[in-house]
């Protein structure tokens, strides 16, 4: 894990500064009817790491993703990506700058084929300009290259059999896979994944997490929301915990479950149910 590889790593406290931070959030706030759904004082995501964002239902994880990716307007705050201010920018410009997100409720393009869903995501396509669209020789070569890459991704995500089916015919898990593959097709610097493995069968999820780890080693930065603690423990280098819109804890996955703030975050909701191992509130009772 990168955090371990680079020595002792940042201190496990919320809002800690990190070396080589790619995404830096400052005072990001969003209220719905007077209630702060998100209020993050400071959060940094380190370049080349996989960060898990966890927290109980309604903690504000999706809202935070919506803000950072430009789909929702904050009531205050600023954030930079690779040193550039991104707040106030439109979603497509944020995506073009290399920060690509997926959605908790999948957004597949139903009446396009699976292959077309992937091809759409390829960045900087010449044939997408109206002036060039009529002149196929201008974009055909590039399109062929995109097709080859899309086919590789489809094999990797076991969607190759469904290549020419309408995306609307896919199952829920297959849609999750398609959306993740599509996000990768966009060649992002950083991915924001909202519960990417929800509904995906565990074996395939493991293999895809392996793939994401490999991409991380090649320089991709990932921040993902996940409720399954096995997945969080398995792939993340760093865990950030949200509750009630705030960032309540941060730390390496091995120790995050022992953090009393994390336990508190989950306690409010389910103090008598066993949690998945990492954030098991009963551990605290035992102490």
């Amino acid at each position, binding site marked *: 894990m990168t955090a371990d590889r680079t020595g002792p790593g940042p201190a496990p406290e919320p809002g800690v500064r990190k070396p080589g931070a790619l995404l830096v959030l400052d005072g990001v706030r969003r209220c719905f009817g007077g209630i702060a759904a998100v209020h993050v004082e400071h959060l940094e995501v380190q370049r080349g790491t996989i960060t898990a964002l966890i927290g109980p239902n309604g903690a504000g994880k999706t809202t935070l993703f919506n803000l950072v990716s430009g789909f929702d307007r904050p009531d205050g705050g600023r954030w930079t990506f690779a040193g550039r201010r991104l707040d106030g920018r439109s979603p497509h410009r944020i995506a073009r700058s290399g920060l*690509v997100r997926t959605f908790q409720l999948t957004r597949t*393009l139903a009446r396009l084929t699976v292959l077309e869903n992937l091809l759409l995501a390829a960045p900087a396509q010449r*044939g997408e300009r109206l002036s060039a669209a009529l002149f196929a020789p201008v974009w055909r070569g590039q399109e062929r290259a995109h097709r080859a890459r899309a086919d590789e991704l489809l094999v990797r995500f076991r969607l190759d059999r469904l290549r020419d089916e309408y995306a609307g015919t896919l199952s829920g898990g297959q849609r999750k896979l398609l959306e993740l593959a599509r996000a990768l097709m966009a060649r992002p610097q950083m991915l924001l994944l909202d519960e990417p493995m929800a509904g995906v069968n565990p074996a395939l999820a493991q293999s895809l997490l392996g793939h994401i780890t490999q991409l991380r080693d090649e320089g991709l930065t990932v921040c993902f929301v996940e409720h399954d603690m096995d997945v969080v423990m398995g792939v993340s280098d760093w865990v950030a915990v949200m509750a009630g819109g705030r960032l309540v804890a941060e730390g390496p996955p091995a120790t995050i479950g022992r953090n009393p703030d994390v336990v508190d975050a989950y306690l409010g909701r389910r103090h008598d149910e066993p949690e998945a191992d990492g954030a098991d509130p009963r551990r605290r009772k035992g102490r």
Partner: protein
Amino acid sequence: MDFSAVLADAIRSGIGPIAAVFAIAAMGLNLHFGYTGLLNFGQVGFMLVGGYGLAITVVTWGGSMWLGILVGLASALVLALLLGLPTLRLRADYLAIATIAAGETLRIFYRSGWAEPTTGGVFGLQRFAGDFYALNPMPPGRYGLWEVRFGARDLWVMLVGWTLVLVIGLLLALLVHSPWGRVIRSVREDETAVRSLGKNVYAYKMQSLVIGGLLGAVAGMLQAIQVQSVNPDSFDPAVTFFLYTLLVLGGAGRILGPVVGSVLFWFVLTFVDSALRQAIGAGIVPSDVISTSEVGAVRFALVGLALILLVAFRPQGILGSRKEMLLGDR
């Protein structure tokens, strides 16, 4: 009762100049609605500014036909920008409201007494198509096969009209099968997803609105030339709904959908009309049940019935795919 006359009438209408006009306007609407998912309920407004742009330039300002065509196209461009700039960032419904209002506002404005010095008011404008018919290579006479015959002027409009349909169809086919078309079709499915992948959805919707609007203007000009007059009341809101009818009939989101739809729409409409008139004339339908003056209304009632049956039994239209339609959420 003369069946061959009824059939000849229907064929003449199905392949006639007005069918070509409606096919072109509906191809524009197909780009909006069938491919981009834009709800344009004012395609007739684009036809109006096109037709009037041509007529006003020639009659009121004394310009040439070519200048008039440019003015007609420019008017459609301006109209598309005016409609799109404020609404395309909002939910789909807003464009629908703006377009339906704009179509009707334009008609009332062009027929107002205030605009009469320029637009001819309720009388409209005539005698602007001379340049067009001067280009007609066919000597006067009647041409055709069997009982389906056209005058040289109509034939000239048809030749130009169906050639335009062919060229526009080819260009649109190239466009929608390009990466540009892929973005357009994706916008139809889910614009949020398209935005998240770095595409400027607003710009694409605007481009689609402009192109489809220009096609509307082309249709409006051809119609004005065909009837050799522009009159505000021939740009009734109902025209837009006929366009939707034939688009759904032929199959939205198919290049040939509006073409097949237009031919069939005019064929059926005229067939019913002509058959009713013949039946009344021959006393098969007593004239106190339906009189000849009521045929116009009755044929639309029958078309409405046909449309209900179509939506019930083949909602995807003639060329559409049922599988694809069931996946759509519209």
